[in-house]
């Protein structure tokens, strides 16, 4: 499987250049996969997401970023979006006067059958087009509704890569289950997902993962393996044995988990 996104020795400092947030990080995101970046609060996950997207206030001090074989290190946010990268925000903005239709249609390049394309995107995120089409993306939408509209806007662009920044924040368990189904729908549309999260239940939908720990990329592997390492770093053995299930089965036997934890303790 080809790499869609490659980070090579990426270092991201704070705006004043006094501290390093992400330190010499390298990993790749395979085309068509769901790749989760996990780590505790403050490990640099969102910084990494915003830097990949190309936000002006997040600058790379060292390293290279490749997207679909192209060096995008010095490209602007707009240029990266036009290449096929987009981001669904953790807390999307409420903008008075901007309709759901207008917002979703902004990123659609081919404006033919625009209404149907917007409606289709709304259906993908399980919002009834008739109810939401003319709504305004202001405070009258709930947090969950606004996140779905954000996802719909990202999907409607038909990008190659969608970065989902903490899509689970502020959502209840039933809604999260629904979101996991939506991620699989996105994957079925041949889009690649870079999922930023710190929750194992969200991450378990991922094929691969990278563990960020205090700005360092500790491990990139299949997601459950990365999750065990995360639990070992955090000292959560019982949680690890209890929580890591995929496709109805336990990911690892207890002996394997015990071994990983012993190795971590020796470090």
């Amino acid at each position, binding site marked *: 499987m080809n790499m869609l996104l490659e980070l090579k020795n990426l270092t991201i400092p704070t705006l004043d250049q006094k501290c390093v947030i992400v330190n010499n990080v390298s990993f790749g995101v395979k085309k068509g996969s769901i790749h989760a970046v996990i780590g505790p609060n403050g490990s640099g996950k969102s910084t990494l997401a915003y830097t990949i*997207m190309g*936000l*002006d*206030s997040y600058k790379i001090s060292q390293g290279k970023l490749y997207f679909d074989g192209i060096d995008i290190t010095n490209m602007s*946010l*707009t240029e990266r*979006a*036009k290449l096929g990268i*987009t*981001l669904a*925000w953790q807390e*999307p*903005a409420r*903008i*008075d*006067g*901007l309709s759901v239709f*207008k917002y979703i249609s*902004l*990123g659609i*390049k081919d404006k033919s059958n625009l209404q149907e394309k917007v409606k289709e995107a709304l259906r993908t995120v399980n919002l009834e087009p008739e109810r939401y089409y003319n709504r305004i993306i202001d405070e009258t939408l709930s947090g969950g509704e606004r996140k779905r509209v954000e996802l719909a*806007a990202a999907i409607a*662009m038909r990008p190659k890569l969608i970065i989902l920044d903490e899509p689970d924040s502020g959502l209840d368990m039933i809604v999260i289950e629904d979101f996991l189904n939506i991620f699989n729908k996105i994957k079925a549309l041949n889009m690649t997902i870079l999922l930023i999260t710190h929750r194992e239940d969200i991450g378990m939908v991922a094929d691969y993962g990278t563990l960020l720990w205090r700005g360092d990329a500790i491990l990139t592997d299949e997601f459950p393996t990365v999750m065990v390492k995360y639990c070992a770093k955090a000292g959560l053995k019982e949680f690890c044995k209890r929580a890591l299930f995929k496709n109805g089965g336990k990911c690892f036997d207890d002996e394997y988990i015990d071994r990983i934890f012993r190795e971590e303790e020796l470090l």
Partner: protein
Amino acid sequence: MRRNEYPQEILQSLEDYNIDIKDFMPGHGGGAKLLLNFNKIAGVDQVEGVILKGREIPNGIVADIIIKEGTKHEEPVHLCFGVNKETGVQEIFPRIIAEDNTSVKVQAHCSFPKANGLIHKMFGHFYIGKNCNFNYSETHYHGENSGALVAPVGYMYIGENSIFENNFNLTQGTPGKVKIMIDIYAMQNSIIRSNIKAYGKSKKDSIRIRDSVFLEGENARSVIKMKAVARNGGEVLMYGVTEGNAPHCNGHVECSEIVLGKGSICRARPFIRAIDPTSSISHEASLGRFPQKWLDELMAKGLTEDEATEILIEAMLKE
């Protein structure tokens, strides 16, 4: 009255505001109407429960609009103050009385498509009774030459348990020199929403708006939202005033102004006052550019910063 009996330029300017004019002319549609062509009354339609009386004076008209007690109309009362001349003086003295238990919308259009030295003044009094739902919208079009001087003044008394919504829009064309002063007095349990939108597009455009709410009755509530854009040397000054003068009243003033291009100026002067310890009055103001996060969100969809800014201006000033 037929459509071709009224200046086409004025009707066109209403259509530019997405106003459906097919029912707008007297003799058509269901709502009451008062049309002015410069200082002449061009047409009047009354409907049951709505009395419209106008009297011409040398430079304009005096008009009484009375909504009789208990009247409830879905169709808005249309007032059109059009001037299809470059210069002249138009003075309007309207008195709007909504008796108790009424529910109406009044849509006023002030259209001066050829203005180039034209002066429009209004001195209006609104008396809204008890238990009313009164919606007043005023849209202005001053042509493309920044050639109008417009100075409306409105005093509005809102009775107990009434809801009053005021919408003022000056977002199409070029404003010229605009000075607007609105004083709203809110009685017990009344609710006031006042939304002002203005767009100064060149250095010949100077807009000053003072929107004041005086919460005089217990539990009266208000929100003033003022939104403006100044570009290419345009100037906008917004005064948002709220006084909490009664127990448990609650008021908020919000002002958002965007500055684009060299020489443009936006100013906001919120003035809030509370004299009752149980009242709650607040304000917030933001001037300059749109929040970076909003721009980033739109740019992540492939828009340039300029394109994102234009989309946000359109949304901000949308009626």
